[in-house]
């Protein structure tokens, strides 16, 4: 649904050049929620703004719904933007317009007539659960309500794609959860493809099907969230399952085990104890529900050096577990 190829964008100011996006390739499939995770300054905001060409990339192409946006003249580009919704961290609502007026704005831009506009606005506000606040002004709303208005406005043009620029970063955890749920729900009910950028792992955990990790303008890994989490050495996995640096325990082998999705492989502690008569010590662990499945990592200590433990480790690998010797 969205193909980004070879995207580059640099900023020049006072003789200095900052490369914000440095050769990014990315593909978002139809109907999925795709999260780009990165710290501030990683270039994720620039990346997102290049998708609807709010920023014009220096190089590369952006194809949305089969149309190469980078090749379009201004007028056609504006028409295509109407089919790409966008929501913003600080909501970006017009303070001089009511809730209904804000949602009507994109419809006015599209040239929808007054009667149809009113009807569509009412539908959209119902969709986001704000049917009774149509005549309120944004200043009278809570952050969560403002973002709901933002979402209703973004959906006005019946977009196939929604871009989300840190849409929950200015909200408290509870409100974040409700907005994410709404996005997930819209994704499922309307088949809306969502590309979001965030610095919050929570967002990726809760609603993303796929994700990419962006560092210094480059994608360091990308793929389905579940695959990434069960892949040893994954940057996303390390972010989610924060086991910290391994402790110094002389005479032991410390091993990080990535747990598989199914629960069958999880009885390995008892299995090792029975089979090799070793005391398996659990040092740290983290199990999270991600993308409707469970994934986790467990750090265990086995007595003796890695050579001594060769057989147990092989046993774990044969059972389909990803095993890394941490120390």
């Amino acid at each position, binding site marked *: 649904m969205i193909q980004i190829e070879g995207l580059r964008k640099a900023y020049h100011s006072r003789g200095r050049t900052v490369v914000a996006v440095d050769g990014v390739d990315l593909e978002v499939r139809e109907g999925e929620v795709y999260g780009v995770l990165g710290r501030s300054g990683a270039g994720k905001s620039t990346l997102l703004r290049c998708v609807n060409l709010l920023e014009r990339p220096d190089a590369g192409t952006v194809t949305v719904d089969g149309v190469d946006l980078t090749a379009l003249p201004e007028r056609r580009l*504006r028409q*295509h*933007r109407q089919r790409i919704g966008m929501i913003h961290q600080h909501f*970006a609502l*017009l303070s*001089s*317009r009511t809730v209904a007026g804000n949602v009507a*704005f994109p419809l006015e*831009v599209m040239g929808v007539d007054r009667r149809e506009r009113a009807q569509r606005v009412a539908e959209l506000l119902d969709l986001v659960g704000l049917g009774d606040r149509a005549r309120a002004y944004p*200043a009278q709303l809570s952050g969560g309500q403002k973002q709901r208005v933002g979402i209703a406005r973004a959906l006005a043009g019946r977009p196939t794609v929604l871009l989300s620029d840190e849409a929950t970063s200015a909200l408290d955890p509870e409100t974040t959860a409700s907005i994410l749920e709404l996005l997930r729900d819209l994704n499922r009910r309307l088949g809306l493809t969502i590309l979001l950028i965030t610095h919050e792992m929570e967002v990726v955990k809760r609603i993303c099907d796929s994700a990419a990790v962006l560092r210094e303008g480059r994608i360091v890994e990308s793929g389905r969230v579940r695959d990434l989490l069960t892949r040893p050495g994954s940057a996303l996995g390390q972010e989610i399952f924060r086991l910290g640096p391994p402790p110094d325990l002389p005479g032991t082998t410390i091993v990080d085990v990535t747990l598989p999705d199914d629960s069958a492989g999880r009885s390995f502690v008892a299995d090792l104890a029975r089979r090799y008569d070793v005391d398996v010590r659990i040092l740290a662990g983290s199990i999270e529900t991600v993308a409707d499945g469970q994934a986790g990592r467990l750090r265990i200590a086995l007595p003796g050096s890695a050579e001594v433990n060769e057989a147990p480790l092989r046993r774990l690998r044969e059972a389909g577990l990803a095993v890394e010797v941490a120390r």
Partner: protein
Amino acid sequence: MTWADLGPLLWQGAKETGYMVGVSTVLTAIGGLLLGVLLVLTARGGLLAARPVHAALGLIVNIGRSLPFIILLVAIIPFTRALVGTTIGTAAAIVPLTVAAIPFFARIVETAIREVDRDVVAAARAMGASRPEIVFKVLLREARPGLVAGLTITVIALIGYSAMAGVVGGGGLGDLAIRYGYQRFENSVMVATVVLLVVFVQLIQSLGDLIVRWLSHK
């Protein structure tokens, strides 16, 4: 001087001030909005970024604002004659008043529009809005409270400037205060005109505040 003499004088002066300030306010609002919007649009990163144009407009505005009004009034006499055919009278006073107030208001317009959230402009662009739509439906509309507050300041500045219009025979309350109150030591005229001017300014400020409050939803 009795109240019977004073009354018609004051009435005449008030009418002249009202006329001069009224007409120049309308012209200033139009000219200042246009110039202010152009200043914003042509600025770096603006919707019509053009640095030489921006610099030229900025220079014109600054020159206009540097000249003391009394100097401007005299300096542009040839321009006034070319425009309205005369250099004396109320109509002739409107020209320098407008020329002085446009740059003043243009800067206020520029500042008010700059206050509009950049994200909101980005959002409008993301929705496919065209440049005119962004200017009229987003920038000017969102800046409305600031624009009205700025126009109020401008009108009051115009009332102040109009006191000097007597130099070109423009008349008005300020002129009355100078000719009768100052030059002829008619203290009653001085006091009456000052009181009237205070009332004018007060009314305009209150009206401005009222409109700002009505427009503002922040």
